[in-house]
């Protein structure tokens, strides 16, 4: 009954290339499933191209409109070319989180290496974008506007650190939320088993309390699963806006 057992990576296909373990794991399997589901929803859903959308088409359109609105409102009208990037990120993370809510599945967003790679992609993308848009002027970003020059030796390292913190805080937020939620569900479910084995017939009744809490927590976890995908893409939008406007 180890509540952390659910996060274990198990190789499905053992594969070692040039000394590196590149096995196809359960984590990778669910990433593929998430990507295929997103692809299936969008391609299959939009196949009809009906003026009055059916169920799948209206779901696909809702996602599209939602992310398009988010990019427009948070990254500005100039950020339209970067919509596909944000949309892909949002859908992948959302489906990863939501797949994890199905019992017996693996939540790949609960691993920091996955979320950190995603955040690093955003970080590199945004930095390259800012460098391309503004050239060397980009480095003025690290000197707070209007601060005395004498403070530069202290302020610039602090600003550089707080810039480098972005991918770290972005990835910790997503991974910690997912991991904490799933561990909590498992711990509460474990209480019921403990009570039944420890208290006997009385435990059958007392054990209903953690189950009731778990029902509420499951609902809360659905909210978190959506909210974290949303926060991740919103922050991406804000970073893109910073890169475009550079203030």
């Amino acid at each position, binding site marked *: 009954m180890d509540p952390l057992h659910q996060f274990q990576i198990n190789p499905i296909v053992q594969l070692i290339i040039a000394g590196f373990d590149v096995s196809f794991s359960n984590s990778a399997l669910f990433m593929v499933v998430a990507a295929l589901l997103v692809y299936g929803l969008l391609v299959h859903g939009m196949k009809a191209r009906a003026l009055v959308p059916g169920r799948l088409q209206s779901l696909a359109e809702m996602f599209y409109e939602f992310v398009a609105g*988010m990019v*427009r*409102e*948070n*990254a*500005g*009208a100039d950020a339209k070319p970067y919509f596909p990037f944000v949309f892909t990120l949002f859908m992948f993370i959302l489906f990863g989180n939501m797949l994890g809510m199905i019992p017996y599945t693996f939540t790949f967003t609960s691993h920091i290496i996955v979320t950190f790679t995603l955040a690093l992609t955003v970080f590199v993308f945004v930095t390259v974008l800012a460098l391309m848009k503004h050239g060397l002027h980009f480095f003025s*970003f*690290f*000197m*707070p*506007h*209007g*601060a005395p020059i004498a403070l530069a030796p*202290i302020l610039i*390292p*602090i*600003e550089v*650190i*707080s*810039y*480098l*913190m*972005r991918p*770290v*805080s972005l990835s*910790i*937020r997503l991974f*910690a*939320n997912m991991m904490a939620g799933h561990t909590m569900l498992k711990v509460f479910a474990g209480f019921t088993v403990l009570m039944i084995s420890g208290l006997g017939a009385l435990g059958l009744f007392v054990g209903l309390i953690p189950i009731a809490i778990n029902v509420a927590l499951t609902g809360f976890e659905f909210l978190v699963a959506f*909210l974290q995908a*949303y*926060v991740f893409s*919103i*922050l991406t939008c*804000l*970073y893109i*806006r*910073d890169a475009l*406007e550079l*203030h």
Partner: protein
Amino acid sequence: MTDRKPPPSLDELEARLRKAREGQEERSRPSRYAGIPQGPLGVAWRIGVELVAAMIVGVGGGWLIDRWLGTAPWGLVVMFFLGSAAGILNVYRAISGLGFAPGYRRTDKEDPERPNGDGH
């Protein structure tokens, strides 16, 4: 359904489309505060994550600098303090609504959602 209205002319449609687009442009002015959860739990998460991330980058970076340049323990010591400062600075910014960006310039003076008290 015999007395259906005649379909609008193309010019009419064009005018309507333009109007709708203008409305969209109007709404597309980005706002700093849109979307980020502002509830107590959201704020708490943000502060915690900012501080932890600052320590990871500061101490981790200091340790790496020491390993690279062999300056132990000074890289770690200096970077620890700089990291703490960056973490606290970011929490201050997050809470006071200056957003996530480095730099102190407020870009959202015209933001109607957060009047600055300067005649808004």
